[in-house]
């Protein structure tokens, strides 16, 4: 593939890399695994890139490839080590915010989301990214109604997890 195409791809990825980082942080438990998954997502995005050209928005297309890599294609190569250091930086609340009770609750919620299974995580992730149910259903390949029903169930599950 040509150098121009590569440069174009890298530029778009650089601008949208937060999407991939968010997915990596949700699906891995330490920095090594995060980097590992990020790399695999990059490879998969690059492989699929020639097909993307002209189609939808780059970021929309990215959700699908990145989530597919995290849920389906990625092979955890290393042992899973849960490092306390990584957990504590999982969801940083912006510095100017007060660390009141509600922000603590949100941090707790994020920890609860990490305990969900791969598919539920994907649902929550797309929901947090403000995707509508049509996008969610198309990304995962399930019906819109079922995506909605499942999301409601996940909400209940999360609520039970943070308020046992």
């Amino acid at each position: 593939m040509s150098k121009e195409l590569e440069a174009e791809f890298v530029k778009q990825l650089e601008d949208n890399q937060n999407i991939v980082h968010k997915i990596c942080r949700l699906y891995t438990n330490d920095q090594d695994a995060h980097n590992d998954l990020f790399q695999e997502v990059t490879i998969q995005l690059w492989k699929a890139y020639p097909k993307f050209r002209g189609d939808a928005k780059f970021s929309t297309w990215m959700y699908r490839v990145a989530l597919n890599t995290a849920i389906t294609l990625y092979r955890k190569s290393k042992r899973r080590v849960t490092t306390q250091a990584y957990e504590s930086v999982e969801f940083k609340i912006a510095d100017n915010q007060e660390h009141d009770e509600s922000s603590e609750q949100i941090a707790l919620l994020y920890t609860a989301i990490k305990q969900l299974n791969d598919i539920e995580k994907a649902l929550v992730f797309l929901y947090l990214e403000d995707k509508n149910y049509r996008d969610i259903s198309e990304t995962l390949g399930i019906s819109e109604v079922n995506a909605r029903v499942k999301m409601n169930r996940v909400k209940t599950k999360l609520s039970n997890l943070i308020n046992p």
Partner: protein
Amino acid sequence: MDQLEQLKQQWTASDGSYPKYSAGQLTGFIAKRSSSIVKWLFYIALIEFGIFGLLTILMYDTESQQHSKEIAGELFYYGSFVLHYVVIMGFIYLFYKNYKNIDAEQPTRSLMKNILKTRRTMKWYIWYNLGYIMIFTVALSILMLLNDPSITKMTEELHVKNMTTFNVAFVGIAVAIAAVMCGVFYLVYSLIYGILLRRLNKNYEELKKMEV
């Protein structure tokens, strides 16, 4: 759920807390090799085609092979080989078609389905090969009993009185050997695919459950 709505609001605000790779680093990532399960499936398939291909080549034109050709007759011998290769070519075509259909851009469920389809093709390929070995062995052992002069010599030397018992035992041993071989292959492959696709199977079931 209020907290989820709050988290959603802060979700974008948290963008600054993520690492930022430079264009140079990202370009470096592209050059790296993928370690996705699809790649592993591809390698395993190559090994499978290789192993069974090698088995056929190793068996070909050896002394015992010449011997079995004499016993089984050229028609049976070459006929089964031609049929075998046609079927194998069919499998290679199917595998290639399935493999090409795997695309990270498709909806998650179809992607999983296509991966599992590729794995199923390879499962059938293994079963076909094991079945072929089994039938070939049994057929050959029966033909040996009917046509092989060395078997007749052996029964005479051993002073076999009951020919039926001898025949049944002879075919039985051939079946047992083939069955043990099949068993070993089956265990090895179940283990390899089981480890490789455990997570995918779990996630696929989860998605399927949602559609009920």
